[in-house]
């Protein structure tokens, strides 16, 4: 019985390790390529490790294009959208979770339904709208909409707030707190695991966004990192080690963030329940 269990968990481990290698291989391939010298790049069978590690590849590739400018733009967009989502989505979710008002359930249904609208449908009018505002080729089209909440985040936050005991609100109201103070003093601090979750989700989607910048930005000086990387890839005289080096550098912030916030992602997804 014992040996049977041992064999079973042994095979399970082997399967898991094999799958992990499968999932991690592309990362390894990226890193090892980024560190190679050009003459070791195009070899078959490929070399697993470069014979000398070319750390200067990173600097060389990064400085060959205005990646510092792209980084600045990406940081601005990611920071401001994340802040905007947190501020607006928490307020909106609180409104939906803690009040009874006319049309609430209908409006919430509408909110959920908007998640199904493909972006292709709204893309063209939005482009015209932002063009009318004079926002094309600025970072505003990427930032401003984030200050009006996102349905998915609102949904997650609302689920969470509904699990907070109402007695807390009532006690605070007895002490003379108004609705905003209850939101700010009681709910906001309690919501922080979900705030971290939506912060991470939004960071990732904003940092990785390609189509938004592609449609709304024209000048290179306004490019975000993803747009810069795609343009870099399209140049004909660029070596693969440079592309992989920049890809690695661009992937670094999401990866670091993920390792710190992993717990919140897993717990957040588990606790909110998707029924």
């Amino acid at each position, binding site marked *: 019985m014992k040996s049977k269990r041992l064999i079973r968990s042994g095979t399970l481990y082997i399967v898991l390790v094999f799958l992990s290698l499968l999932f991690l291989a*592309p990362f390894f391939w990226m890193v090892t390529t980024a560190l190679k010298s050009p003459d070791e790049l195009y070899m078959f069978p490929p070399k697993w490790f470069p014979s000398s590690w070319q750390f200067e590849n990173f600097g060389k590739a990064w400085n060959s294009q205005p990646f510092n400018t792209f980084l600045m733009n990406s940081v601005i967009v990611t920071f401001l959208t994340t802040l905007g989502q947190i501020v607006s989505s928490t307020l909106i979710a609180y409104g939906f979770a803690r009040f009874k008002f006319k049309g609430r359930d209908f409006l919430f249904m509408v909110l959920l339904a908007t998640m199904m609208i493909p972006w292709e449908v*709204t893309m063209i009018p939005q482009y015209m709208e932002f063009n009318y505002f004079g926002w094309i080729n600025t970072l505003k089209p990427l930032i401003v909409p984030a200050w009006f909440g996102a349905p998915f985040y609102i949904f997650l936050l609302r689920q969470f707030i509904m699990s907070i005991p109402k007695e807390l609100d009532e006690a605070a109201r007895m002490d003379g707190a108004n609705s905003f103070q209850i939101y700010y003093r009681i709910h906001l601090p309690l919501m922080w695991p979900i705030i971290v979750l939506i912060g991470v989700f939004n960071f990732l989607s904003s940092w990785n966004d390609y189509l938004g910048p592609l449609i709304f930005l024209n000048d290179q000086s306004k490019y975000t990192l993803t747009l810069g990387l795609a343009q870099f890839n399209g140049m004909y005289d660029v070596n693969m080690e440079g592309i992989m080096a920049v890809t690695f550098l661009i992937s670094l912030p999401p990866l670091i963030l993920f390792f710190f916030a992993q717990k919140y992602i897993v717990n957040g997804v588990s606790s909110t329940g998707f029924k």
Partner: protein
Amino acid sequence: MKHDLIVSTENISVQTKRKINWGRLAPYIFISPWIIGFLLFTLGPLLFSLFISFFDWPIVGEKTFVGFSNYATMFTDDPLFWHSLWVTVKFAMLFVPLNIIISLFLAILLNKKLKASSLFRTFFYVPSVISGVALAMIWGWVYNGEYGILNYFLSLAGIEGPDWLNNQRWALLAMVIASLWGQGTMMLIFLAGLKNIPKDLYEAAEIDGAGKVYCFFKITLPLLTPTLLFNLITTIISAFQQLTLALVLTGGGPLGSTYFYAMYVYENAFKYFKMGYSSANAWIMFLIVLFLTMLVFKSSSVWVYYENEVKNSK
């Protein structure tokens, strides 16, 4: 004392009146950002998109009302419409089932009692944090026909791999695989669903002598169907919006084999500047997605199992 009370009621009533007004307004103030955003960035554009789909609407120049002619052209006189729709349907038919099966399989493995399961969970999830262009870059190099790591592994098994992204037969499958790599969130959702299944059900079944396979089909799968429904709908929606990979890696080629519907819409709008026609394209896609979602929802009453149903039937 009594006198005092009577005098102050007037005050109170004034106060409560104010409070009621505020109280009625408060929720609307809290949700107002969403309402404004919804009107400005969703409903407005949605209606405007429908409106201009009945026009010949170049980005500059004369706009002319053309009735249903954009829609008619699409269906009868534009092979690219049918072609891109077919490419997307093929992609979805591969991507949706594979995504569901693989995520579910990984979740089941991770749900076993193992010391290192959180480490493996990290490994399986980590590709999901880099999506879009970075993911495309990595896979573009993995798929390289001459020097790519994938063909190296295939050569170890004695298979000569194709030049994936430049091969009409393999490019779409390559897109499917690359997309599957970054689908960890779905795995986490399945994992959460699995953890929600009460353990005593399995214990009871074991006492009755039920095997693993029986338990999976009679307990795990039925109780997981609500999660499955959610994942199925999100996957279908995302499959129909697939664009970034093709835009960055293949530009829709080779020979249009990765020319997704979303790319068709995008190019009509921002390459050929046919805003009216492109809006009509987008609306057709919207209707297709809506139809499929409805279909899944309608069918769900047959195959989705809610726990309270079990309780009620007892």
